[in-house]
């Protein structure tokens, strides 16, 4: 097991390198000149040339990559073209906000998904199961940016029950655990949670159906254990894989929240990324994608390792 974990960690290094190369290459396949975003209307050719040198756009690509990688390794992701602030200083707080949103969404999704999943897993094959399956598929099929828009109009504008946008009166700086702050989280997190809810429901349903089919369950039944005890067994056996799904979902939502963040003006990485794309702020685009992808790699690693620790029976190559 230890060997596997070590190998798994070592294996992450080349992946991370590959990811950084893709991030770097990404912006250079872009049509047009990255310079265009930072030159105001009617700038003279002199100014253009001067900016080109100042931002290092005059060096060959491999040099730019190595220069960039060396800086990235030291946590220096460059300066935002639009704001002149360090990219890391832009991405780090945004990442915290996105994590908050994604965690809340996964939590909502967990509760919702478990309820649906357990119900349908126990009722496998009956009409109720069909209904529940359909409901969980709804979660997977719905365009959630559209759902967010509809929820906002109903709950924020028409009912005036919940705030429509942002992270609170004081912004993310004063975001805390009180209802004052949390009410801002409800709509975006709920919107985002339909994805993990559907998936967790499917996964719970599948696991429960499978566990119930296994031999030891038959034995327990034969022994005449009460239903409650059997339920505990089911949960114990289903938990590791459900937790794994949750971890992976959390990781996926880091990238998936871009549409919801745009709709709700949630100041996370998605909002940042959308902004960077439309202003062609390439350092920010690069930095955000790199940080998110690295985080994704790390969460996947953690989930994998934890799963191995929790359930050593899982054999791995």
């Amino acid at each position, binding site marked *: 097991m230890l060997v596997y974990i070590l190998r798994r960690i070592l294996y992450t290094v*080349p*992946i*991370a390198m*590959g*990811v950084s*190369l*893709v991030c770097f290459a*990404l*912006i250079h*396949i*872009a*049509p047009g000149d990255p310079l265009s975003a930072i030159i105001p209307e009617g700038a003279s050719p002199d100014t253009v040339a001067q900016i080109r040198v100042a931002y290092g756009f005059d060096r060959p690509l491999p040099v730019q990559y190595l220069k960039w990688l060396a800086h990235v390794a030291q946590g220096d992701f460059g300066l935002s073209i639009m704001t002149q602030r360090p990219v890391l200083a832009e991405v780090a707080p945004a990442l915290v906000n996105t994590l908050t949103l994604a965690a809340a969404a996964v939590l909502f999704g967990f509760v919702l998904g478990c309820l649906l999943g357990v119900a349908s897993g126990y009722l496998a094959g009956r009409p109720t199961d*069909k209904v529940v*399956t*359909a409901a969980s*598929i*709804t979660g*997977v*099929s*719905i*365009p*959630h*940016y*559209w*759902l967010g*828009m*509809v929820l906002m*109009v109903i709950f924020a*504008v028409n009912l005036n029950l919940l705030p429509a946008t942002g992270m609170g009166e004081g912004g993310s700086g004063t975001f805390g655990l009180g209802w004052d702050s949390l009410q801002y989280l409800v709509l975006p997190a709920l919107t985002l949670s*339909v*994805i993990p809810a*559907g*998936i967790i429901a*499917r*996964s719970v349903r599948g696991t429960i159906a499978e566990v119930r089919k296994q031999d030891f369950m038959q034995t327990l039944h034969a022994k005449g254990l009460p239903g409650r005890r059997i339920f505990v067994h089911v949960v114990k056996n289903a938990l590791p894989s459900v937790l794994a*799904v949750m971890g*992976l*979902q959390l*990781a*996926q*939502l*880091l*990238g*998936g929240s*871009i*549409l919801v963040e*745009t709709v709700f003006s949630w100041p996370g990485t998605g909002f940042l*990324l*959308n902004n960077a*794309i*439309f202003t062609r702020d390439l350092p920010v*685009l690069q930095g955000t*994608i790199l940080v*998110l*992808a690295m985080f*994704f*790699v790390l969460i*996947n690693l953690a989930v994998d390792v934890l799963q191995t620790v929790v359930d050593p029976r899982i054999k791995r190559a």
Partner: protein
Amino acid sequence: MPQTSIALAGADAPAKGRRPATRSFWRNVLRRLLRDPVTMTCFTILLLIVLAAIFAPYVAPHDPYRTSMARRLIAPGDARYWLGTDELGRDLLSRLIYGGRLSLFMGFAPVLMATAIGGALGVIAGYVGGAMNMLIMRVIDVFYAFPSVLLAVAISGVLGAGIGNTIFSLTLVFIPPVARVAESVATQMRMQDFVEAARATGAANWRIVLAHVVPNVTGPILSYASSLISVSIVLAAGLSFLGLGITPPEPEWGLMLNTLRQSIYVAPLNAVLPGVMIFITSMCFNLMSDGLHSAMDVKQ
């Protein structure tokens, strides 16, 4: 939505219990599908949408491009414009029918391309093994190391809007998981006795691949790819919604959602209709994919 199935359908989980891919197996699958009311209902709905899209010029009651400021944002339920009109006074029903063309195309095209490319890469990696496997799979792993929505948004954002760019970015997103499914099956096949035996008799590699590997890989890949179609539709619509996908004046559901969004306060029903279409279509594909899964899963 998007990322979901990718994480779910578990490209990680090696397909268990290979069945020999025989003609009778596929006949059985088909028989089970035909007996499943949910699958058949979804199939019928999708067939209607697809046929309507293909024969749009004959089916659509009005010209989907004809604008008129006099009749903009008529509510659904109108005697002449059954589903109402959009912000330019164009018939919504006709636009939804025409919109099906691009939206469905955006569902199928990237999945088909990713299945072909990813499948081929996976089979080669799995069957050849060794250094080739290392090379292909590590590159695949790098792309797999991005959250799928992020990768799609990043590539589309960088390349700009347009059908070609959207298909390219979605294809790139779908290749890694397809390749991983194909690779794991192909690797298992390589270890099988009958493949070893075929090799020992000196059969050409391409013959073995065609005769033994491809037929066995087809099932899992198809089953997996079917679950990607709805992901592709929702994701493509999402890109259009962000302004990164289809460009106007083409009717496309995501783009219609985007432009009608401004009208949600005066014409809420008109504004949500394209979303309903995306939802119904992607739900049908998901339910069918589910049906296919279970039809193929029954032990023989």
